[in-house]
């Protein structure tokens, strides 16, 4: 099955890249953007078709490597 993992900075952590993007959007005249936070997306293909197993594998992957939980949080979405 397919899954998507989203890794984003915790809300308390400053995101200078997001701020720079926010500023660039403003200078391009894109209206109505009040804040930008940058994150990462991982599209993962798994051998299993069992959602519980997939979830457990991805949680393990996030804790071990994909996210640094000191500053980041992650969200797992099973796409199927």
């Amino acid at each position, binding site marked *: 099955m397919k899954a998507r993992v989203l890794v984003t900075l915790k809300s308390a952590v400053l995101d*200078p890249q997001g701020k720079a993007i926010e500023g660039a959007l403003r200078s391009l005249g894109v209206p109505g953007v009040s804040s930008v936070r940058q994150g990462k997306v991982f599209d993962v293909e798994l051998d299993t078709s069992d959602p519980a197993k997939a979830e457990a594998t991805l949680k393990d992957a996030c804790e071990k*490597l994909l996210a*640094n939980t000191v*500053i980041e949080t992650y969200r797992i979405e099973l796409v199927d």
Partner: protein
Amino acid sequence: MKSAVLVFPGSNREGDVARALHMVSGVKPAMVWHADTALPPGTDLVVLPGGFSYGDYLRCGAIAARAPIMEAVRAHAARGGLVLGICNGFQILCESGLLPGVLVRNARLRFICREALLKVERNDTPFTRRYARGAIVRYPVAHGEGNYTADAATLKRLEEEGRVLFRYVMPDGHRDDAQVLNGAANSIAGIVSEKLNVLGLMPHPENHVDPVVGPTDGRALFESIVGALEKA
């Protein structure tokens, strides 16, 4: 003194630190490949050099921190062996959990390559015994992700336990967290582990060891290590 310098794909300062260790101790360090699973027998000091291990993919130091050799480094540190991580080496130590916190993108987003003024906060550690307490030294910095960050509880603990060994300071010798070059919390440039045997720092002491090149403020760090190991 037996030292080992780890080499990851993308490390690029291993030669400089090996040269500094050779100059100061008279012994050439062993160069140890990341895929090895053991350190040379009798290793006293492990150095994680600067560079861009694994191209900084995912996060700086993230992949190197999971390399096979890191299990041996963890065991060495647990035995009380000395570990020194410089720049990317510091990032790897944080990612591996050997030191707390994390190094994120510089606050003003620029890669900073220049000399930095640092205060040596204490001299009762194996890494700083040849400096005067409170000495102001000059080491170069060269990093894009040197902005030290940790949660409030970790920062409080580091300060209470006196584990901030190097701090960026202004020309007058005082720290200014609002002006610090890379945005680092509490102007932190380098920290040690609880048992004082693991040091991670962003600036490069190995650049400043040879009078032919310029200042030699970094030399005392390597002399400190040699002295600490002789005493042991």
